[in-house]
């Protein structure tokens, strides 16, 4: 009898492959377990270490598996609670091929291979599961999609470009290929190909593929003069055609092309060459898919039906962001792409909810506010949004409001499932105070701007960064009008906003040391969000509003625009724009590393150069503050 072993067994049986074993078997394993505590940054094993006699299960904490690629340590995968790693000794004799390092203080269970092996041998289910995970590099989105799948492949290798997604990624291909018959004259086909701007034509009999001509055939067989241009096409076509089924994956398609030395694959209904043609895959399609094209993500978003699909797509976006940052692609590009994908996800979440709930009884608009509206959301931070519906007859008001609240609740639940947590202040559309009719909203903005700072007014400056996600553009126009009418000559509002912006704590102490959190769970870490990013965001918002610049929400673009509008202070604005990018990059890297919102940066972990960089990025803030103090009268609320 061993009560702790029972507890550990209870923990293990939640996860594969242990859930395939009987309670007694798990208990037997649990008794043999060694429990290891790992301090932060302690390694379990590193590359080229000789194999241990056990494999590991994460009991709590976070373990990063990394490899060294191009002299840089690159994270292959993060092992959360319940994840199995270090399975290599099961299958291979050579040393470990990756590092396993505790990202935070962690507890792992070491399960002796000798104890576990008999269960593997006697249980083919378990064996297959382990083998599958060892043989295939499926460390990416597949893992994330399927939470049951907590096994980490041992032979993952990192080649820089390969992202591992190709094993499940579906290909988008030409579904309307050029189809002709065997007795067509070559010249006609060449003309058609030129017209349709394709480099291939399928030759069919009764819609069943018999051959294919490509640019290569044309150049090697016609242009060389081996066949006259007036011959029929069956003389020069390549056959048989390699056929595949519709749901072929990128990797499969690639292998088939290599194996058969062809450049095109014909898609048929069931994948054999005896059924109807569905389309054609060219090498170009493979390149597009491999580029991890965000366009593909957006397409997949538009087709998605469930929140779980959105979640999977969002996690792939996370991979794109991570690899882009590691490849030093400019942050403005990354955030442009990310915001487009985010935008599509938000929109689709609302659409999906409408599909489930039935069409809305009145016109409405769904707005994002905060970071999502500013198109600055690289990490999975919180969602803020509100909903406006058109004015309706008073007797129908309640019914309609109920519909929209339900709609919002659904959409928000979907987004939450996707990974965007709820706003802690409750700035979401399912909240009855943020789901109102147009005239109520206009009144709300009016009262915010005319009487800022009044009690129970609930003014959060993020409401001025709104961006329409879904619905009627006219509603946004109406809001714009009220906001910009009220801005003119409204010293009180700027007084309020200015004080709000300046109230954020300064980032550096008098001695130019970082001011870190003094207590709480993030003790000794630097709060980059409140101390560095928010003042810039608030400042940019204030100035754009005061200059009446419409339609720009992104902080970086705002500063760039301000430099043009207010050219006298262009230098300060441009410095701020750069600083903003640098700070965002720091935050994003931290967020990726820790799988959180990146709000708190561990200064100790930064290299000396990075620390200086961060400090320099904080300098323009002071100038921006002075500019705010000069331009606006900040007396009322000080």
């Amino acid at each position: 009898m061993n009560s702790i072993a029972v507890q550990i067994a209870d923990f293990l049986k939640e996860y594969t492959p242990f859930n395939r074993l009987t309670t007694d078997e798990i208990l037997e394993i649990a008794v043999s377990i060694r429990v290891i505590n790992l301090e932060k940054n302690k390694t379990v094993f590193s590359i080229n270490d000789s194999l241990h006699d056990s494999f590991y299960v994460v009991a709590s904490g976070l373990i990063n598996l990394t490899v060294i690629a191009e002299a840089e340590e690159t994270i292959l995968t993060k092992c959360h609670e319940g994840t199995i790693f270090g399975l290599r000794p099961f299958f291979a004799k050579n040393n470990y091929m990756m590092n396993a390092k505790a990202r935070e203080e962690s507890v792992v269970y070491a399960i002796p291979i000798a104890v576990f092996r008999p269960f593997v041998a006697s249980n083919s289910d378990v064996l297959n599961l382990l083998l599958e995970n060892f043989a295939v590099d499926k460390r990416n989105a597949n893992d994330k999609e399927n939470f049951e799948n907590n096994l980490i492949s041992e032979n993952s290798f990192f080649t820089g470009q390969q992202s591992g997604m190709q094993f499940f990624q579906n290909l988008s291909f030409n579904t309307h290929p050029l189809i002709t018959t065997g007795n067509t004259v070559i010249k006609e086909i060449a003309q058609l190909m030129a017209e349709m701007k394709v480099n291939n034509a399928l030759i069919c009999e009764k819609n069943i593929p018999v051959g294919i001509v490509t640019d290569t055939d044309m150049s090697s067989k016609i242009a060389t003069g081996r066949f006259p241009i007036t011959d029929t096409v069956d003389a020069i076509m390549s056959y048989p055609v390699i056929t595949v089924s519709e749901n072929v994956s990128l990797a499969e398609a690639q292998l088939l092309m290599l194996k058969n030395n062809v450049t095109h694959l014909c898609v048929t209904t069931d994948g054999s060459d005896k059924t109807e043609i569905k389309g054609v895959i060219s090498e170009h399609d493979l390149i597009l898919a491999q580029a991890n094209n965000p366009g593909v993500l957006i397409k997949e978003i538009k087709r998605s039906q469930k929140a779980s699909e959105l979640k999977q797509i969002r996690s792939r976006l996370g991979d794109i962001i991570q690899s882009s940052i590691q490849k030093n692609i400019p942050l403005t590009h990354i955030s442009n792409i990310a915001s487009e994908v985010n935008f599509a996800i938000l929109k689709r979440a609302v659409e999906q909810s409408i599909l489930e709930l039935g069409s809305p009884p009145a016109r409405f608009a769904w707005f994002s506010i905060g970071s999502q509206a500013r198109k600055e959301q690289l990490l999975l931070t919180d969602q803020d949004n509100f909903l406006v519906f058109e004015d309706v007859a008073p007797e129908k008001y309640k019914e309609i409001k109920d519909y929209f609240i339900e709609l919002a609740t659904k959409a928000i639940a979907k987004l939450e499932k996707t990974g965007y947590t709820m706003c802690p202040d409750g700035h979401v559309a399912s909240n009855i105070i943020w789901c109102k009719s147009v005239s109520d909203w206009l009144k709300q903005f009016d009262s915010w701007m005319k009487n800022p700072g009044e009690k129970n007014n609930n003014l959060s400056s993020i409401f001025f960064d709104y961006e329409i996600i879904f619905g009627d553009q006219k509603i946004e126009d109406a809001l714009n009008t009220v906001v910009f009418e009220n801005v003119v000559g409204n010293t009180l509002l700027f007084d309020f906003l200015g004080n709000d912006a300046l109230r954020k704590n300064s980032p550096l102490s008098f001695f130019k040391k970082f001011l870190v959190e003094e207590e709480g769970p993030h003790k000794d870490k630097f709060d980059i969000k409140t101390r560095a990013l928010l003042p810039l965001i608030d400042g940019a918002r204030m100035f754009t509003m005061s200059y009446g610049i419409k339609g720009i929400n992104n902080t970086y673009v705002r500063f760039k625009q301000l430099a043009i509008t207010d050219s006298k202070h262009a230098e300060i604005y441009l410095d701020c724009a750069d600083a903003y990018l640098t700070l965002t990059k720091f935050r994003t890297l931290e967020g990726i590393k820790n799988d959180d919102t990146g709000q708190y940066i561990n200064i100790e972990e930064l290299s000396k150069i990075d620390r200086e960089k961060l400090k320099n990025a904080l300098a323009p803030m002071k100038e921006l503050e002075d500019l705010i103090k000069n331009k606006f009268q900040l007396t009322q609320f000080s």
Partner: protein
Amino acid sequence: MLDWLKTMNKVYPDFWKNYLSTFNKKSKRFVLLSIETTGDSVQSDVILTIGAFSVIDDSIHIGDNFETVLMQYKFFHDNKLPFDFIVDSKLKKMGEPDAMKGFIDYLGNAILVGHNINFSVAMLNAALERLECGSLKNEALDVNIMHQKLIEVTDQDFTLDELLKVYKIPNEIKGSSPDAAYRTALLFLKLKSRLGIK
């Protein structure tokens, strides 16, 4: 001195002789001990449960454990207490002599670790005396003192719950001695690596 004279002619039970013979060499094994008692008095109270795990090479060996509930029927009877506790307990039930013998065999020459370990040792010694054995000879470490050393405080005592909270060890479900011993073991591993004890 008098102690020595008293024990001169005493014949120890076999298990105790075995125990003494293990001290020929130094041990690398730590035994994390937690006991429950009926009260605070070494003389009049008795041990109710014993839970222990071993730590070797910075890892807790789940299989190398000892847990038991002692059938202290005499104590319960003398104090007119119900026996429900013993009946309900899911741990292995043993009489005090068997439990002590089993524990001493399990312990060997390992280094004892626990919270408020001196009291535990005193309770065990009292029980051993009833079996005509000597006192425990093991080295003993106290997690409380380890923590005090780490944060350089000497005048403040920490309860086990406080320590678990400081080191973020989950402590939601209150269990019996084995749970406490397991948590103490995690705590010990954390303290050990922070203090750099080999």
